[in-house]
């Protein structure tokens, strides 16, 4: 295992930094060197690393939001239960009434999920403005 030396020069590389390094390689070396389908896929691969990067920083908030939702709508859920799945099944069986609180939870959740997967999706800016304004 690597450690910082006495002068404080970092020698360790975090997983986020590794992702950044691979992303730079893909965009700066691989994409220009490739063509056609491979070039396209190299760009997709760089985007995928962006998803992983964002997921690492946002997942904690998502987990907290889902745990809170479980307390409210799945009081019987065991620890570690798959919360989105349990909620989906309750909805499918029409056992869960999607009231304003529940819809607000789904909207807040969706803003986080899209912040991971595609923060630049055009509808997201509209949703964020609409839903965040309502919160305040």
């Amino acid at each position, binding site marked *: 295992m690597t450690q910082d030396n006495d002068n404080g020069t970092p020698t360790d590389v975090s997983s986020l930094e590794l992702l950044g390094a691979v992303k730079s390689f893909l965009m700066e070396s691989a994409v220009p060197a490739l063509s056609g*389908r491979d070039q396209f896929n190299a760009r997709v691969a760089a985007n995928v690393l962006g*998803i992983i990067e964002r997921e690492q920083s946002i997942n904690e908030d998502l987990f907290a939001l889902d745990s809170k939702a479980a307390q409210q709508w799945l009081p019987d859920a065991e620890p570690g239960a798959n919360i989105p*799945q349990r909620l989906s*099944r309750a*909805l499918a069986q029409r056992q869960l009434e*999607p009231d304003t609180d529940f819809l607000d939870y789904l909207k807040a959740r969706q803003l986080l999920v899209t912040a991971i997967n*595609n923060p630049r999706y055009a*509808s997201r800016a509209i949703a964020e403005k609409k839903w965040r304004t309502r919160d305040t």
Partner: protein
Amino acid sequence: MSPEQLTEQLNAALRKPLAGKVPGDRVDQLTRLSGGAVNETWRLKWGDTPLILRRRPFSADSVDNLEGNILGLSLKDEAAVIQLATAAAVPVPEIYAVFDAAHPVGEAFLMDFIPGESIPQRWLTDVNFEAARDRLAFECGQALARIHAIDSSQLPDTVAPTTLEKRFRVAQQRLHTFGDSSPVMQLGLNWLIDHAPKEAPCVLLHGDFRTGNLLIDDNGLAGVLDWELAHQGPAEEDLGYLCAHVWRFGQLDKPVGGFGHYEDLIAGYESIAGWAPALTTVRYWEIFAALSWGLVCQTMGALWHSGNGDVERAAIVRRRSEAELDMLLLMEAWEDS
């Protein structure tokens, strides 16, 4: 199959069907084009003539466990529907040869190359396409009305009439098959069931009529591509699909495909069909289209897990979250209106 192997197979397979129609004796410059989540699209030259090959790279058997036709028609049936569209004066490419899965080329068909732009980023905001964009919503309405008027008794058996109830059941089964992983998609399906319009007569639908599958030139609509999702259903479905957020490519203020307005689309439709689809029903189908897109994204994940596909297909799965966001926005807008 490598491009070299495919070229060799095509050299042997195409001489007969192209004889007397397209001058040349061999395939040249076979290049795979980007895009196409299920089928491959290849460009090639036969003599001096550019042609397009649509090819399904995997056996249909590998996805048999996925209920319904979300992956679309066989290429043979797709070719048959395109040929009917030609006769109905819809702008589509001429088809020269069709191969089934047992053929050495693989399941595929060969068609004309129509000049024009399909990639949305190249024509949706470019000033050079402004005149084309201005008339495009009306022309799309006209083309859809012509497709919907095609005699359904001529269609392949796989393009059969269906009911909304069956569609809901298939969507529900698919959500279960995919592990009930999305409360938003389930909420959306419940909403669509609760707000279903009155059952309407089934017509032939293109099923994937949207920005990205349309060829645009200076004069407007030059070609309608990608017929693999053709099916039967109510006319408004195709109109709503074209207006879905995901197919506006960021131009959200232009509801028809990111380039036009509802009234022009509906007026174009009425000019051919003699009746005007109701805007509320069109908007219902926009929400249905968001659910369908979410399900397609999940299907891509299932396909990728079955060993079919590259990083692009794996990444598409994450775009489900766009469909979910749109469903929440659209259901809210509907309730607010």
